[in-house]
């Protein structure tokens, strides 16, 4: 019975999810028929452009370059945000010093960072810097909150058993922080792709953004849509194939059904 009960919502989610995506594709095709290929290319044109880019060997190198820019920027932002946020959560003066800085950084639009980064660094590092500075404050806020809500009683219990620092990190602080950091890291990862593509487009430093810029220069709407499809596909694949699975695994203890009887 459990399997059936668990299967129904999954089937319903799949059904309505497919319905939603199908509706979006229908609207796309309708828009194409109403406004023509120059404004919105048809689904067949987009697929043809996608296949052409694939045959020309453009997709994978561009994807790898964008993944490098987004991944490295996200990694730097995540590490800096986690360390600074952790310290801010544990020490009030650090929090009082860094929180206004984080608010200021969050308030600066990503596009402004791109312009500054192009002047300061140029090329691929401009993209990496922009991603790091756009995602870091998001992780910082989550890490601060996570560290502030650490359970003092659990830490005291662990100290009473003479737990070594490594085990404290792995068994007490780590799992608690993951609960707070994971949603922020996932949001920052999705954001890193979008910011990286935007920065690549403006900086001409390769990647999918460069492909988009070239398609725009040729007024090739079908190719533009093909690149957009690549970006969205990667985001969906990372979200469904990696992030959700990791989250399910990390939060198994929270989601388990049924509690004790007494």
């Amino acid at each position, binding site marked *: 019975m459990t399997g059936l009960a668990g299967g129904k919502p999954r089937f319903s989610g799949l059904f309505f999810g497919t319905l939603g995506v199908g509706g979006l594709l229908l609207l796309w095709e309708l828009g194409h028929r109403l406004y023509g290929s120059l404004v919105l290319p048809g689904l067949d044109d987009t697929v043809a452009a996608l296949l052409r880019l694939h045959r020309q060997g453009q997709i994978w190198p561009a994807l790898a370059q964008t993944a490098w820019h987004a991944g490295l920027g996200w990694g730097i932002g995540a590490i800096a945000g986690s360390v600074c946020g952790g310290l801010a959560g544990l020490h009030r003066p650090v929090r009082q010093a860094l929180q206004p800085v984080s608010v200021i950084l969050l308030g600066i639009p990503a596009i402004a960072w791109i312009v500054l980064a192009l002047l300061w660094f140029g090329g691929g590092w401009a993209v990496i810097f922009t991603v790091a500075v756009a995602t870091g404050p998001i992780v910082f806020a989550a890490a601060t909150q996570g560290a502030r809500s650490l359970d003092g*009683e*659990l830490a*005291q*219990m*662990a*100290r*009473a*058993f*003479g*737990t*070594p620092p490594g*085990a404290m990190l792995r*068994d*007490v602080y780590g*799992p*608690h922080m993951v609960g707070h950091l994971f949603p922020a890291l996932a949001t920052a990862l999705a954001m890193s792709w979008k910011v990286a593509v935007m920065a690549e487009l403006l900086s001409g430093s390769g990647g999918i953004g460069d492909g988009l810029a070239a398609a725009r220069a040729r007024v090739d709407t079908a190719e533009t849509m093909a690149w957009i499809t690549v970006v969205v596909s990667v985001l969906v694949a990372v979200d469904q194939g990696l992030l959700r699975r990791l989250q399910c695994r990390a939060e*198994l*203890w*929270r989601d*388990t059904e*049924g*509690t*004790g*009887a*007494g």
Partner: protein
Amino acid sequence: MSGDGADPILTADGLGFDRAARPILDAVSLRLDRGEVLVVMGPSGCGKSTFLALVGGLLQPSRGSLCCRSARTAMMFQEPRLLPWRTALDNVAFALKGDDVSAQSRLARARDALSALSLGTEDFGKYPRQLSGGMRQRVALARTLVGRPDLLLLDEPFAALDTGLARDMRAVLHDYLRRELASAVIVTHDPREALELGGRVVVFSKAPGRIAFEMAPDPAALGDMSVERLNRLEAALIDAGGQV
């Protein structure tokens, strides 16, 4: 003060502790011999839990001296304080993280400790929120005993349990103390439980906590529940400002 045998496991001399310049515990002097059970009672806020935290090394004394010669100390709290993201088995094995033994060995010892507390193997892989309150407290007791400590510090460990389960867990504790010749400092509010535990009883006064009354251990070590002993203990608690 009790016992004049050599090598006590715990000695406190003029022990005091202040929090935010307010004395919580003052001039506590006592010794605990190996294999001895000390039951600490007193009104709320008299520093009983603070005394345990000082012995457990979680706090540093403000005054006086404290000498603990145990090879291994383990603590159990009123709430189970289990790691919510670890299974029952992993929670028990957690107590051995500081030991130089393999993960397999830690888990094997944790299995034995849980089995000794009558927890079914089907419950070993459950997370704390899947366990009942009584099961959680049994896991906490297993975690306390798995490292075979020679000094146990128990802060009202059975207060939240129903009578039957509390009795069973006391029996497990007694058995352990007898088998391992271990010592224990046990905080309780319940005079009957204090006598059932069969050790020496000290009653702390209102804050700042001082030793206001001391009762020798049950000579038969059987948990003498005589009306005379119970009446004396209850009177001492009322004198100290507590409720019975």
